[in-house]
């Protein structure tokens, strides 16, 4: 897999590059600011771009804007945004900006090496990787939109809610089963119940299920 990275702090950029290379991911180019993303993506046609939200020259949401623009211009490009904070508005904008693989993770997740590499590979393969904090915020917003706890999400059992959260992070059924240490069949059953309670169309495809869940949460 070929990846590029845009991060202005050399300390983090070099660390992430080393981490990715150790895990067999080829980092083909690096940049330090928003315009740099477009330059290296156009020049190297990578599978994945990893982008920090806050970049020069404005040090606001420059990286997010550049990431959204890159998703629009390069439909096959997976984009993984790293940030030091969760802002549901930004996640929603990012999710809505394209069809290819996309992710939004808090920066400290790079320390959970296996999960981080999983997320990187998932996004490069066209899947989704959302930070659990992002999912919690989306759930909170959706529940607020439903009005108190008697909405559809309020009707989920604690286990179903756990499964929903893991799915919303972008995990496949098999990965959910691994994370919860239950059988694949048990997860299947929970997923069917969740989709029935939230009134979502059933699907056998992991990725489409994730998208359905995210669309449901985003509309909150």
């Amino acid at each position, binding site marked *: 897999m070929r990846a590029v990275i845009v991060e202005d702090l050399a300390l983090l950029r070099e660390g992430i590059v080393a981490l990715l290379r150790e895990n067999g991911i080829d980092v083909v180019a690096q940049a330090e600011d928003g315009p740099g993303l477009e330059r290296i993506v156009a020049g190297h046609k990578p599978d994945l771009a990893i982008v920090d939200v806050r970049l020069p020259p404005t040090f606001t949401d420059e990286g997010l804007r550049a990431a959204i623009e890159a998703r629009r211009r390069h439909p096959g490009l997976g984009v993984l945004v790293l940030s*030091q904070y969760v802002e549901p508005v930004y996640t929603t904008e990012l999710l809505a900006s394209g069809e290819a693989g996309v992710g939004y993770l808090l920066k400290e997740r790079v320390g959970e*090496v296996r999960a981080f590499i999983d997320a990187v590979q998932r996004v490069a393969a066209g899947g989704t990787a959302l930070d659990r904090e992002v999912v919690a915020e989306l759930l909170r917003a959706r*529940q607020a939109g439903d009005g108190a706890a008697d909405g559809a999400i309020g009707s989920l059992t604690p286990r179903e809610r756990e499964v929903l959260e893991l799915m919303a992070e972008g995990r496949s059924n098999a990965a959910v089963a691994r994370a919860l240490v239950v059988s694949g069949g048990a997860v299947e059953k929970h997923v069917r119940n969740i989709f029935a309670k939230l009134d979502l169309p059933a699907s056998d495809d992991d990725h489409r299920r994730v998208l359905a869940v995210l669309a449901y949460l985003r509309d909150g």
Partner: protein
Amino acid sequence: MHDPATSVPQPSADSPPSASWLDLQIAFTLLLAILMAVIWVASGFGYFWPAWVWMGLSVPIALHVLVLRTRARAPGAERRLRLQAELSTGVAALLFVIWALAGMGPLWPFWSWLGLALAYAAHAIVVHRDWLPARAREQALVERVDVLTRTRSGALDVQAAELRRIERDLHDGAQARLVALSMHLGRAEQRVADQPEIAELLRQAREDAGAAIAELRDLARGIAPPILADRGLTAAIEALARRSAIGVTIDADPDRRPLPVVETAAYFVVAEALTNVAKHAGGAAARVRVTLDGDETLVLEIADEGPGGADPEGSGLRGLRSRVEALDGTLGITSPPGGGTTIRAELPCGR
């Protein structure tokens, strides 16, 4: 010939106000004066009547000089005061001359002099009332308030700038280093996967680093949420509304961004007010209005249709008030029992 500076307080003859015209006028007047003296001599001396004519002749010259002197001064209260002084002196001198020529009986011009002096004194007091002790104190206070307003607003700007700098430093400094630390710990953890005890210690260390990062994140968010700095007040309030447990409608469209210090205060006022609504208004929806009144005042209104009866001295509302008052703003609360609650904050945003 009498002193040409004497004058009477009446409209001057329409003499062109220039020095050469004045010279001409003086020469002509001297000629007339000499002519009078010659006539007096030719008519066999007798009562010295030319003195009266000379006095009359001196008046237009004095007026001419007065006009020239007055025009040379800057307009204003001080010029009017000087004009009065010179006119009064002239009138006083004229009266003295008349008294002297009329045979120096009882000093009757004294009363006119007294009147002129009193009028001048009254005028002078009005013009220089700043020199009076009470007035001077008042003036000093006005100036002090000006200075304090300016320095306080400066201090708040500096404080806001400092807070944003600290937030930046946290982001690029401590937070980034902790992220790097947890990344290195993660990589080390991977390499000692076959030594579970060491791996577990490293995992714990990484979790501690993660907790520290989360604490710094909360701290930075308390200074100002990122979306406020990135996108401004309206976007930040919309984000608040999306996260709120109650329905919130927003009517906000200031066409320019207030100073960061005002923006941050406004954000926290709305955040705190919405929290109060969620807590006390029994699930009632809230309405937020943000308007810029004449580019000088940012007006925030947060209204709900809950049960009302909010205690203006409650800790939440007191906190809001002190935040607003620190910026020289005002906070009003209307909360009749059964009639909903409206919080209105006005924040000056000009300098």
